[in-house]
């Protein structure tokens, strides 16, 4: 089994719900807490397992905003695990989840240097490295209804832009959608073989704007008022 996430860049609206749901679940889960520094002050910072960045692709007028959530890719070739001197970082053979044993970590930051995706963050309060656990304490919890045995970020996503499943099984829903939509991995040239895949935006023809009519008198007045009246 190779459990991982598939992120749909076509439908992601960039609302950060996955990031906040992740923070909410994991601040009381197995690597809890996710410490905050100065949370209500002018310079809020803290540990997050999932971060959403926003990019502009292409150039106006052929451009598009892409919201880009990133968390641990649970790489096949996880160098964060090989470089760890203490054995605190490990990759589970049964499902491929990469975890940090909080009782063994000495906080040397070396694994975060080896990670190209910025998935690992040091918790200054505990002095240990923390990272996405793929909600390992949710997905196997038999006291939860079966449809809720998914990572918190996947359940929270209002746009269904996050899919969770076994990427080794060619017939799983995630493997099929990666095949059909041309899913890809990030920075393939570094050969970390990340498990998480990204689905590119669907290509649709742009909505034409050049053939719009001049519009009625009422519309022109409205547009003029909109320009003149200060909001």
């Amino acid at each position, binding site marked *: 089994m190779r459990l991982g996430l598939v992120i749909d860049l076509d439908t992601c609206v960039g609302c950060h719900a996955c990031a906040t749901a992740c923070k909410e679940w994991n601040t009381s889960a197995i690597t809890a807490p996710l410490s905050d*520094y100065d949370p209500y002050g002018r310079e809020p910072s803290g*540990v997050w397992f999932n971060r959403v960045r926003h990019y502009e692709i292409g150039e106006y007028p052929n451009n598009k905003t892409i919201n880009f959530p990133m968390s641990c890719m649970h790489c096949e070739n996880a160098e964060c*695990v090989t470089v760890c001197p203490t*054995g605190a970082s490990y990759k589970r053979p049964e499902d491929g989840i990469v975890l940090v044993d909080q009782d063994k970590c*000495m906080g*040397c930051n070396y694994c975060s240097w080896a990670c*190209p995706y910025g998935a690992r963050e040091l918790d200054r309060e505990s002095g240990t490295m923390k990272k996405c656990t793929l909600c390992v304490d949710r997905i196997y919890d038999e006291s939860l209804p079966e449809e809720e045995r998914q990572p918190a970020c996947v359940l929270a996503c209002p746009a269904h832009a996050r899919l969770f499943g076994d990427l080794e099984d060619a017939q799983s829903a995630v493997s099929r959608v990666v095949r059909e939509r041309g899913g890809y991995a990030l920075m393939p*040239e570094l050969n970390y073989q990340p498990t998480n895949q*990204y689905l*590119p935006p669907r290509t649709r023809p742009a909505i034409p704007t050049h053939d719009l009519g001049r519009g009625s008198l009422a519309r022109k007045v409205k547009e003029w008022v909109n320009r003149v009246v200060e909001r």
Partner: protein
Amino acid sequence: MNPSLAVIFLTLFSGSGFGLMAMIAVINDLPIDGGLSPTRTAVLVGVALLLVTIGMISSTAHLANPKNAWRAFTRWRTSWLAREGVFAVLFYPLAAADLGWTFFQNTAHGAVALLLTNAAAAIGLITIFCQGMIYACLRTIRQWHTPLVPANFFVLGLAVGATIAASARLLSGGPATALIAIAVTLFLAAAILKAIYYFWIGRPTGTTLQTATGFNRGKVRLLDQGHTFGTFLTHEFSNQISARAAQRFKIAVYLVGFATPAAILILGLHAPLGAWALVAPLAALTGIGIERYLFFVEAQHVVNLYHGRTPAAMPMMPASLKTRADVTQRPLVPSYEKR
């Protein structure tokens, strides 16, 4: 990368200590300039142990959770950091035994003394290699992912070691010509290797924001990094230095780190320097400390791409590449620890 003083001191002082141990072995093996007397061997091995210890103690300051540091020796099969720890710890009993044997048996050239000196020197050289590989094995940081890194560590460690041995000989008197020639040759080699490195890191890398996001055919520009203040990632990886400042520091490395100690040693051949001979190793350590600072601050982790820093906007790039129109240089948010 964050130029943490703990790691700079670790590589600087322990590298110098291992280099000194290797030079003691070479000097007594051949022997060069008559070799070292037992007392002088013991004193220099003591200095090597002291330098290594300073490095090792300062390395623990880098750990956020040092109570688990003892576990760092367990994963030597895969981790260069663990290997460095294992060999650094192996160095201690050998060097201490060498120190004790030469001091109490009052011999530096007997079979046992030479065996211990050479064993400690070999372990020290292996430790320098492991230290270099800690950085060179990281594919995420192109400026480190090169055989030049362990090569630089070797030649700089040996150069400082040779400087300490030569200036100790100047202090205590005796023939020093060959010792000084070795030290000056090592500084020359260091200057050439560092020049190769500094030109090499100026070339752009293969990984870009395009491959990092998968949008290989279009222009990709950061709109928002999703946080209003710094994070662990910006604190640890976003340090950089302006091209002009980097150039000044590089000149300082060459003047203070290489030229000054070499000049002082050559001067010592012709005029009695007395205690001034100690300026040579001090200048070398200062200059190579600046070199180590640059080594960290010029290294750019690929995660900086996600924060909008393009390879061409990185400080070591030639100006002609930096002014390309498609390069957006956007400052990262300030480090979250600098309040």
